[in-house]
C-alpha cells in the first residue's frame, strides 16, 4: 500500500506541520515515510506545499509528478495541482480559500469547510487538524491513535497540553467533510 499525497496552501496555514504530523503518524505504524517540503521565501506569505509519501515498501522518489491525494487550501494551489491528481484519485479542498471549484470529473472531490469551522470553534490553529481529520475519514491510512502518538513525537513537550484540542479538531474534521 502506498499513498502519495500533496498538501498545498498559503504559508502559515500549517501545511508543512500537517504533513509532518502525517509523516510521524506513518512512522508510528512502521511505514516508510518521506516528507519533502517546498522551502524558501514562499513559506513566508506565499504558497507552500509538502509532498508526503506513506508506503509499506522502500520509497524511491520524494519528488512526484502525480498524486493519489491532493489537499488544496487555496486557489493558486488548486490551479497548480488539480491536474496532477491521478485519475480516480482524491482531491480535498477547503471552501474558504477556493472561489472556483475543481472541475475534473475523473477524480473524487471532497469539500471541507475547515476555515469556517475553525473560526466557529474560535481556534484558528485547529484549521490544519480539521483538514487532517477530513483526510483520515476519506482515506484512513493511519489510525487516530497513531496520529496522537505522532503529535506527541512532533510537538515539543511544552505543547503536549494542546493534544486534546487537536484530537477534537481531527474528530470535527471527520464529521464535516462532504463529497461533491
Amino acid at each position, binding site marked *: 500500500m502506498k499513498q502519495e499525497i500533496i498538501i498545498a496552501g498559503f504559508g502559515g496555514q500549517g501545511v508543512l506541520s500537517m504533513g*509532518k504530523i502525517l*509523516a*510521524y503518524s506513518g*512512522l508510528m505504524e512502521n511505514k*516508510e*515515510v*518521506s*516528507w*519533502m*517540503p517546498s*522551502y*524558501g*521565501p514562499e513559506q513566508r506569505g506565499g504558497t507552500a506545499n509538502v509532498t508526503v509519501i506513506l508506503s509499506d515498501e522502500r*520509497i*524511491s*522518489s*520524494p*519528488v*512526484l*509528478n*502525480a498524486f493519489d491525494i491532493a489537499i488544496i487550501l487555496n486557489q493558486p494551489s488548486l490551479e497548480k495541482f488539480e491536474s496532477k491528481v491521478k485519475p480516480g484519485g482524491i482531491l480535498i479542498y477547503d471552501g474558504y480559500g477556493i472561489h472556483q471549484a475543481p472541475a475534473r470529473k475523473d477524480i473524487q472531490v471532497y469539500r471541507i469547510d475547515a476555515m469556517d469551522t475553525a473560526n466557529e470553534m474560535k481556534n484558528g490553529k485547529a484549521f490544519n487538524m480539521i483538514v487532517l481529520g477530513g483526510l483520515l475519514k476519506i482515506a484512513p491510512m493511519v489510525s487516530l491513535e497513531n496520529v496522537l502518538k505522532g503529535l506527541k*513525537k512532533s510537538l515539543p513537550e511544552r505543547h503536549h497540553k494542546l493534544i486534546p484540542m487537536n484530537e477534537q479538531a481531527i474528530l470535527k474534521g471527520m464529521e464535516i467533510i462532504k463529497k461533491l
Partner: protein
Amino acid sequence: MTEEVKLMKGNEAIAHAAVRCGADGYFGYPITPQSEIMETLMELKPWETTGMVVLQAESEVAAINMVYGGAGTGKAVMTSSSSPGVSLKQEGISYIAGAELPCLIVNVMRGGPGLGTIQPSQADYFQAVKGGGHGDYRLITLAPASVQEMADFVALGFDLAFKYCNPAMILADGIIGQMMEKVVLPPFRPRRTEEEIRTQMPWAVQGKTAGRKRNVITSLELEPAKMEENNIRFQTKYKEIEKAEVRYEEIGCEDADYLIIAFGSMARICQKTIEMARAEGLKIGLLRPITLWPFPTDIISSYADKVKGMISVELNAGQMVEDVRLAVNGRVKVEHFGRLGGIVPTPDEVLDAIKQKLL
C-alpha cells in the same frame, strides 16, 4: 540498546551524526538550504556532553580556516555551507589538501552561479571533483541519496579523511538536506583523547615534546624540487584512493538495455523513472555513483558493451556526463538530461527525456 528509528531532515541527521561519531569541532556560517546543521548542533549543545565545539564564525572564510587550524592539531573538525559559501572556502580547502590534513566539508548545493537561488542543484559537481581551489589536489567526495546516508557519511567521511590525511566532502543538495525520512542514527563513539591523537596522528601540532622534531603544518614549499616531490606524494595517494575507495550502487542494471547514471537526490527521482519505465516494458537500470571522486569509472566502462545507451541525469547543464563519457570512451552513446537553476525534474519528465534522447 535497540536502534531507534527517527524521522528527521537530512541536515539534522548530519548534525546528530557529527556529535555521535566523536567530532571535535564544527565551524560554520549560516546559509540556506543547510542552516539546520548548525541550528541542530546548537540545540544539541554537544559542548556539554562530548565536549565538541560548535562555533558560528564571522564568515565562511573564517570557518574553513578554523577547520584548517583544528585539523592541524589532529582533531576531527568539520564545516558546512551551501554553494556560494563553499566557493568562499575554496582557498582554505586547497591549503588543507596541500598540508595533507583530514577534515570534513559539507556542501548542501543550491542553484548558481553567483548567489543564484536557494532551490536544489547539483551544479557544484565540477567544483567538488575537479578542483575548486587551485593546484593539483583531490577531494574525497561522497554523494548521499537519503537522510540515512546523510547520517552515515559523516563517520565515513571522517574515517576516509583520517585514513588518507585528505579533506573529504559530503556533496548533498537542497532536497536531501530539507526532506525528512526515517533514519537510524549511528552508534556513539567517543572523541579521541589527547593521548590517542598523539599516537595515531604523530604529525599533529600538539606542543613539541623533548626528543622529537618539530611538527610543521604548511602547504608552502619554495624549493621546486621538494614541491614536486610533495605533489608526487599527493598523486600516489590519490591513485591509492582511486583503487580502494570507489563506491556505487546498481539498481536494475543486470538486464538493462539502457543505463541512467545519477547521484544524490537525482538518483532517487530516477529510481521512480525506472519503475515507470519497467511498467511500460522498457528495461532501464540505474548506476548511482556514491563516491563522485574517486569516480566509478571501471563499472561504468564495463556496461559500455552491454547497454544500447547511457544518460547522465543531473541537476546541472552537464557536468558528471563528462566523466561518464571518459569512462566509456566512445563505445556507447552517452546523453545528458538536466534541469537548471533550482528546478527539479519529476520522474516522468526524466522518462520522456530518455525516450527522446536514447530510444
